[in-house]
């Protein structure tokens, strides 16, 4: 069989835990890491007679996220029960939103600073609120098949964000998730900590195969619980290949009788996806409106108020930095990816230095390097923006040359000193022009061979003089030395 080219088609369902103090329908803490079953009450463990009461803060955070995702906010939304039996779901149903979600029809723009794909808008079909289930801990050691349930997480507010199947590659998938995570982190809606399960991803994936008869879609597979970006990329790559091979074997395509969405898990150790349900049957969750909760009505004026109150979002900050500081999309991406604190720091450095581009170089290279080396957050970084800006300004003004400036920078960081103090300590001072000319005259006179080489057209030979000038005075600016020496040689 001949090989066909195919496109990867991906839609993502992302669950993010909202940064509320308390659970979605009761007053229990949502803090991660407490001893099992210590953050529970009659409501979240589904005791007979208990009733849910909506956490307004959770709804507020969801509104912010939905608006940031350019979603429409319907005036009326309601709660539905999604019914299934599982030991970590103590009520036998999850309170979720079915046919009238709190938001729908939005988009998220993704881009690649490396330019591997064109910027594009990924559609957001809907974002809705729901409660999390508990955790099942299966201990099957020694054939005991013991399972333990921790209900601390039960009832934690989740925002489920469902993308349209607009994603076409692993790079786009990563870009979508990175941008989503950044957006939600900027909003303070979620900490998006994947290790703690604050951000969980299910991927709906199939491939569209080019054949002489036209495009053929394979049956859709949902890969569940992908808990790192790397897993997702690997799982998608594996799944695309697997679906292609299955299609080659069986010819089965999307919509064929007897084909339906299959749920698969990802085994990272083996590097494979595997069927999660023995019997492939469609579930009937028997959704119906939860009679214990009132519908939520959000007036248009309220939506506008929340929209106006939204913090500046990553995409807008990037555009602003590029426009007002003239920096490259690559630099703006790096700065914005570090979070709002870095953006503010960068802008203060740029202002103090009077040059956005130079400031960007210093922040994205030197500052980031130190943070990485030291394992610091920006808050732990000892240089104020004003102090770094001062250094950058001196570099721009030619008071200090770049390699020496990096020495100064390291000294400022190490000894928590100002640029002036560090320069003094390192004995760095701008060399007087007449002194520099004297040094140059001296070394030109002492190196007739180099002079001859330069005159003979080998301009780069002048480089050897720079080191000699530096020996005579470490503060000699190599650029100035080069310029003066070349002038002297030309005149000679």
């Amino acid at each position, binding site marked *: 069989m001949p090989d066909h080219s195919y496109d990867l088609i991906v839609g993502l369902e992302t669950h993010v835990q909202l940064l509320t103090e308390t659970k979605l329908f009761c007053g229990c803490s949502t803090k991660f890491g407490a001893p099992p079953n210590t953050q529970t009450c009659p409501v979240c463990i589904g005791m*007979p007679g208990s*009733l849910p009461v909506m956490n307004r803060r959770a709804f507020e955070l969801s509104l912010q996220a939905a608006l940031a995702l350019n979603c429409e906010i319907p005036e009326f939304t309601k709660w539905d029960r999604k019914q299934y039996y599982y*030991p970590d779901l103590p009520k036998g149903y999850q309170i979720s939103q079915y046919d009238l979600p709190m938001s729908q029809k939005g988009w998220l723009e993704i881009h690649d600073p490396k330019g591997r794909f064109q910027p594009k808008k990924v559609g957001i079909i809907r974002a809705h609120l729901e409660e999390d289930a508990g955790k099942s801990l299966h201990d099957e050691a020694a054939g005991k098949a013991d399972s333990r349930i921790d209900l601390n997480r039960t009832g934690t507010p989740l925002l489920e964000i469902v993308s349209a199947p607009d994603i076409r590659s692993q790079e786009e998938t990563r870009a979508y998730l990175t941008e989503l995570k950044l957006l939600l982190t900027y909003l303070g809606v979620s900490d998006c900590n994947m290790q703690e399960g604050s951000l969980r991803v299910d991927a709906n994936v199939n491939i569209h195969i080019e054949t002489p008869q036209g495009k053929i879609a394979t049956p859709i597979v949902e890969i569940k619980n992908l808990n790192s970006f790397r897993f997702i990329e690997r799982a998608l790559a594996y799944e695309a290949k697997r679906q292609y091979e299955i299609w080659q074997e069986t010819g089965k395509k999307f919509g064929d009788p007897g084909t339906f969405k299959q749920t698969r898990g990802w085994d990272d150790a083996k590097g494979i996806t595997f069927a999660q349900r023995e019997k492939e049957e469609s579930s009937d969750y028997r959704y119906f409106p939860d*009679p214990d909760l009132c519908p939520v009505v959000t007036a248009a004026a309220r939506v506008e108020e929340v929209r106006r109150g939204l913090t500046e979002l990553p995409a807008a900050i990037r555009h602003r930095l590029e426009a007002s500081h003239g920096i490259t999309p690559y630099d703006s991406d790096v700065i914005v990816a570090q979070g709002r604190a870095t953006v503010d720091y960068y802008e203060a450095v740029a202002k103090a230095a009077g040059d956005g581009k130079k400031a960007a170089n210093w922040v994205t290279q030197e500052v980031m390097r130190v943070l990485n080396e030291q394992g610091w957050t920006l808050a732990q970084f000892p240089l104020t923006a004003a102090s770094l800006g001062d250094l950058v300004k001196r570099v721009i003004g030619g008071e200090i040359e770049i390699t020496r400036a990096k020495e100064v920078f390291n000294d400022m960081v190490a000894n928590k000193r100002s640029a002036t103090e560090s320069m003094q300590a390192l004995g760095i001072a701008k060399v007087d022009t007449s002194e520099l000319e004297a040094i140059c005259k001296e070394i030109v006179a002492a190196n007739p061979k180099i002079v001859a080489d330069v005159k003979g057209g080998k301009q780069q030979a002048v480089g050897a003089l720079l080191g000699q000038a530096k020996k005579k005075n470490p503060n000699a600016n190599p650029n100035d030395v080069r310029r003066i020496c070349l002038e002297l040689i030309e005149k000679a």
Partner: protein
Amino acid sequence: MSLISKSAAEHLRDLEARKVSSVELTRAYLDQIQKHDAKIKAFLLVDPDAALARAKGIDDRRAAGKPVGKLGGLPVAIKDVMCTQGVKTTCASKILENFVPPYDATVIKKLKAADAVLIGKTNMDEFAMGGSTENSAYFKTANPWDTSRVPGGSSGGSAACQAAMMAALSLGTDTGGSIRQPAAFCGITGLKPTYGRVSRYGLVAFASSLDQIGPFGQTAEDCALLLEVLAGHDPLDSTSANIPTPEYSKTVNQPLKGLKLGIAREYFAEGLNSEIEAAVRAAIKAYESLGATAKEVSMPNTKYGIATYYIIAPSEASSNLARYDGVHYGYRTEEKQMLAELADEQKRYEAEKNQKKLADMDTPLIRLYRKTRAEGFGPEVKRRIMLGTYTLSAGYYDAYYLKALKVRRLIRGDYDKAFEEVDFLVGPTTPSPAFKIGEKIDDPLSMYLEDLYTVPTNLAGLAGISIPCGFTKSGLPIGLQMQCRAFDEERLLQAAAMYQKATDWHMKRPALA
């Protein structure tokens, strides 16, 4: 006149005047329980020591001149569907046979704060599903007027203990008539408040959009007293109404002027027992003699009430009862035996080389669910879980549940229209008097039809009261139902009290053997 034959309001006046102590009163009711409950079987649980200790505490406070709550030491019986902290709450179901709630229902908190003496937990139809209290997993309760007959249900235990003078007041719940029908069968006064008037927090849910807690008493005044304590907004119940609670006990004895009664012709259609019809018509005459005017109105969608109810209530119930799975609390099937059964099945199918059976075998978890629920629920509860599961299933939802919601709105529309013209709808509470124990147990449909007049009130979310208005020739009580606009309980109680001032049906007490 014995101590316990007085109304709760009379007791309260005596308590406040220190003519009687809470301990004396509690002891008198406990004696009555001791004497008669072996036959009536109204109580699932009585804790005399705790009740007397509480009564003594209240007496002591009163004696010390300290403030005492509105219920001042009155013994109150609780339907066993409301959570009581540290006290078993079974819903008359095997599946909750050992369930001890870690918290009090809001109404229990309120009763305690109002210095009620909780005298015991009463029998009921399992999970409040039924109209005869025969669906209790533990025992059947007898009607104090004729112990071969049912007390009604589902709040049969609370109604029977009230009628048999085993408590000064009692609490019931009404999802489709479960307060009003047993009140009618037992010859007492029972009020189903407007949906949202009383917090449902801690009430074990049957059908959440219909359930409502309400009072039983000898008189409308008693009900006013108790409702005043129960009612009010509860931040723990999103469906509780955030409106002020009137002081029902202060206004209940003020007669209403210019009362306009609506007589729905649909309430007097075929199937209504003639003695009941006669008693109800006489009651309307009595009202007219008190200055009321009566007018015929039409409630054309009444006939869809039962069908609508038996879609909505089981749908919600199927969901509400999903939590009883044997995992977290309550009854769980014997696990070792269950696992042995599974192992046997597997061996058998392997011997038969029956691959299909092997593939279809339950996992231990699924079998745990199946067996726990099969053993823990009674037949009526299972019937409703199955009905509700069916009506919510994909492909049936629109035809059943969604349609039922639409009819529900039409039924509410009937009321809204009627209440443009009249203040109250008056009619029989039930089409027939208390039936024999066992008479309808194998005929669920005829049992369901007993709720014909009461179910629409719940569907519309309104309030209704049943008050005694006569007896059949064979000596069975007859109930008069009055329904009112949403949150108009204050006037409903006044209207009921007017009638009770003019008549003495509510004063009749059964002769207990």
